[in-house]
């Protein structure tokens, strides 16, 4: 199992998203949270505001507000909706986010440092992103030293961070709790999975269905927010 190096040099605009959506099965958009100065809770509906109250750190609050806002702008563009208020997001028990009345859309969200990665896809996917660093573990490294059930490939040549990223993407894809897969082998048989090193800074793992899919990975241009919540 190898890691593909990916250099992303330019950004995708909101207006380009329908075109990319037509050409691909999975859109993966990286968003720089630091590009958004203020965090406007007006973009959140009542359920989301309720969820926000339960977040006890400034970092988590910021990333939640911005990611939900940007995601709604993306979905507006994709679905040709005129207003963000026409987009309703909700979470199922598994923790996965869905778009109300749009079961054809699959979402997955992952954060690291000042980056949120939003996956919007026509198939079920799980993604995870981690800023590249040396994940130095002693005892806990045993939770990562596991081979896949596909005997032709194994994880032993990957570093701790990459293995963890893959495991978490797998959890999100299979709707399993991270706790349940901590010490278990990944069943990657018949499951599509890829690992990317993006701009030499971020490790991104994608786990999907049984066959290869068209995936586009890009950075999203800063969204110009319209106070009236119109696209």
């Amino acid at each position: 199992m190898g890691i593909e190096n990916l250099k992303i040099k330019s950004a995708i605009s909101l207006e380009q998203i329908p075109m990319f959506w037509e050409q691909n099965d999975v859109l993966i958009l990286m968003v720089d949270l630091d590009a958004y100065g203020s965090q406007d809770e007006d973009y959140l509906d009542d359920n989301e505001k309720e969820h926000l109250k339960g977040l006890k750190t400034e970092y988590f609050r910021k990333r939640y507000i911005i990611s939900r806002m940007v995601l709604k702008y993306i979905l507006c563009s994709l679905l040709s909706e005129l207003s963000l208020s026409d987009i309703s997001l909700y979470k199922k028990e598994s923790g996965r986010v869905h778009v109300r009345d749009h079961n054809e859309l699959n979402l997955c969200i992952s954060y690291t440092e000042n980056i949120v990665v939003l996956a919007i896809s026509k198939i079920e996917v799980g993604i995870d992103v981690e800023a590249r660093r040396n994940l130095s573990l002693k005892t806990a490294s045993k939770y990562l030293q596991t081979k896949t059930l596909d005997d032709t490939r194994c994880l032993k040549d990957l570093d701790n961070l990459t293995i963890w990223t893959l495991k978490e993407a797998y959890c999100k894809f299979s709707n399993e709790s991270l706790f349940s897969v901590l010490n278990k082998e990944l069943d990657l048989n018949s499951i599509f999975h890829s690992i990317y090193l993006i701009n030499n800074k971020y490790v991104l793992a994608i786990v999907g269905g049984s066959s290869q899919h068209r995936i586009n990975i890009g950075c999203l241009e800063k969204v110009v927010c319209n106070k009236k919540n119109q696209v």
Partner: protein
Amino acid sequence: MQQIKNDILDYLKVQSFMDSNTQLNDTDSLTQSGIMDSIGLLELLDFISENYSIEIPEDMLTPENLDSLQGITNMIVKMTTDGHEN
């Protein structure tokens, strides 16, 4: 038990996303409350194992034992008094 709880809290104050305004209750979910993310959880596991010389068995890798200050404290107390130390 209180010392263990204080140790874990001190760890979280340095290693998690807690800021000066964060009020963490004993039973708050560390992951759902935005205290730590999943990789932070892995590093916390490592800290616990190393600091208390315990090897956490698979059946104890549960949210009840690992996702709150109280759960973690209880687990460490149980493991260090039940002969689970390395």
